[in-house]
């Protein structure tokens, strides 16, 4: 009988190489409470401006949509359902020429204006990226101070896709000149309700 030589899989090879490396057993550090008390709203607004986002109210949003006479507007936010003139398609490719998407964010982070969204907030995963302009509706009392608090808040949430979005698509790849509107949304407006 010919003995078959067992060839180690790459997985096992890598794992065994790691196992065969003597190392310490340093424990994970505790993350202290870095929460900042005080005015979260002001910090959030300042952070958003730094990221080239804007805060608008309902009236300004209406003016924005009216004045541009956008053809394809999709609102997943109950608040602004009336602006919506299309439904979520089956395939994201059909969103290629959409003008405005209005969605609701779960909460915002004051230190950097990141807003947490999960799959169910987006309708389609591609929506916040492919739309020309993005509007996120955020409840005023849904702010946390920093990213530690943010992940505490997300907790064990198990959405297939989650996103911290902090501003419009931007690039500085040409001579470090900041350009808003690289591949994704050319603007981000946040409506605080």
């Amino acid at each position, binding site marked *: 009988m010919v003995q078959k030589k067992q060839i180690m899989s790459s997985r096992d090879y890598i794992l065994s190489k790691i196992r065969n490396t003597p190392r310490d057993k340093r424990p994970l550090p505790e993350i202290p409470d870095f929460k900042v008390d005080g005015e979260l709203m002001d910090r959030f607004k300042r952070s958003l401006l730094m990221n080239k986002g804007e805060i608008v109210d309902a009236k300004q949003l209406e003016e924005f949509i009216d004045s541009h006479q956008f053809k394809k507007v999709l609102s997943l936010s109950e608040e602004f359902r009336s602006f919506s003139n299309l439904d979520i398609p089956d395939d994201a490719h059909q969103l290629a020429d959409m003008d405005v998407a209005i969605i609701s964010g779960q909460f915002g982070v004051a230190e950097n204006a990141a807003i947490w969204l999960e799959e169910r907030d987006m309708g389609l995963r591609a929506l916040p990226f492919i739309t020309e302009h993005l509007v996120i509706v955020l409840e005023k009392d849904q702010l946390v101070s920093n990213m530690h608090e943010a992940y505490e808040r997300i907790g064990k949430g198990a959405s297939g896709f989650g996103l911290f979005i*902090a501003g419009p698509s931007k690039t500085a790849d040409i001579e470090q000149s900041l350009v808003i509107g690289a591949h994704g949304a050319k603007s981000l407006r946040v409506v605080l309700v």
Partner: protein
Amino acid sequence: MNHPTKAEEFLSDGANAKWHDETLWFVRDKRDSSSKTVPEWEELRDLASRIKDNVLDYLETYLLEFEKNAKANNIRVHWAKNAEEHNQIVLGILNKHQCKAIVKSKSILTEECHLNPFLEKHGIEVVDTDLGERIVQFLNQPPSHIVMPAIHLKKMAISDIFHEKLQTEKGNDDPYYLTQAARNHLREKFLAAKVAITGVNFGVAETGEFVVCTNEGNADMGVHLADVHIASMGIEKIIPKREHLGVFLRLLARSATGQSITNYNSHFRSPDTGKEIHIVLVDNGRTEQLAREKFRNSLKCIRCGACMNTCPIYRRSGGFSYGSTVPGPIGSILSPGLDLQKHSSLPFASTLCGSCSDVCPVKINIHEQLYEWRQEITKAQAANAKSISMKIANGIFAVPFAYKISAGMMRGALKFLPDSITYSGLNTWGKQRDLPELPKETFKQWYKKNRS
């Protein structure tokens, strides 16, 4: 070609070198200001460093946990020992889906694996979608910086290549105009691609999810429109828990560009209905680096690029002078582990000023590792001429009498050698610098006369 030669070439265009230095200094300055708005900044660096220490100590445990959780989330997990296996795995997935064109967002790992030329050889069109990467791809160049791939180019050069490739107006070098041209061009590519490749910033063992950070949104444009998402991830990119993302995301963008966070931070946990996500876990020399105790913690790197922006050498010699996928200080401690001979000049491309270690968000002792690599390299090149002269020097310095004699000879020589010799090509110091004037007596001679 070694680093000094390429650095000299880079510096020969003085205006461009000055621009490069000032532009990167500006980014470092933004990083400094931004980090100082976070009171607990140094504490965060320390936490990040200790989390990564723990990751390296329990790497196999976290990788297995990650694999288990990712699989449970319907993500397909592949393991690659080296670049070749990584590339074959990617090709296999593309072939299975009969895919002939892909979009790829920034992934230094795929650069390290030379994935693009490999796939192109197999008839697959690869479109890099990060603006900077698309620019250098048009020029058949590698990125010169891991965060700002086209930082070595002036906008007119970009205008010229866009005119040729994207038919933009000749001479129009307005960054907004050029970016819009790229946007329209890449939009078509995004809409057409069936498979999208991304890198990975962090893989979370606890959840099996992975996080990709961009400002342009190109990674998401690619993967959400494609049917298949392939994520290439170095095995050291693992972190234990979701809560650790809080630490790393606070550090990453602030260190990289001074922003408080990247605009898009996508957490991929399971594929969308009817779609596929593949993760390729890549070793490619990482387990060897893990086994090198002195250099192990170079694997903590989160690829922010801060050490490049702060490095007085990188700023004045450009990314290409390093001749390695990852340039700059971190590249100079990673690359010798991959090919000692090829990269032997890199650990010497430093004054050991230590700025890299002080900006590093995970506190890698980069300048100390540069010093340690120097020791390894000279051991590997034991027959080198420099070694002999150094041994002689050591012999001299160890024996006071010999030191006195030789110093006296040196002083004598300096006094009587004509300028033409001290300043000739043989005397590199003297090419652009005067030598100090020789005093009439040494301190030792003075001391003997005046104090003893």
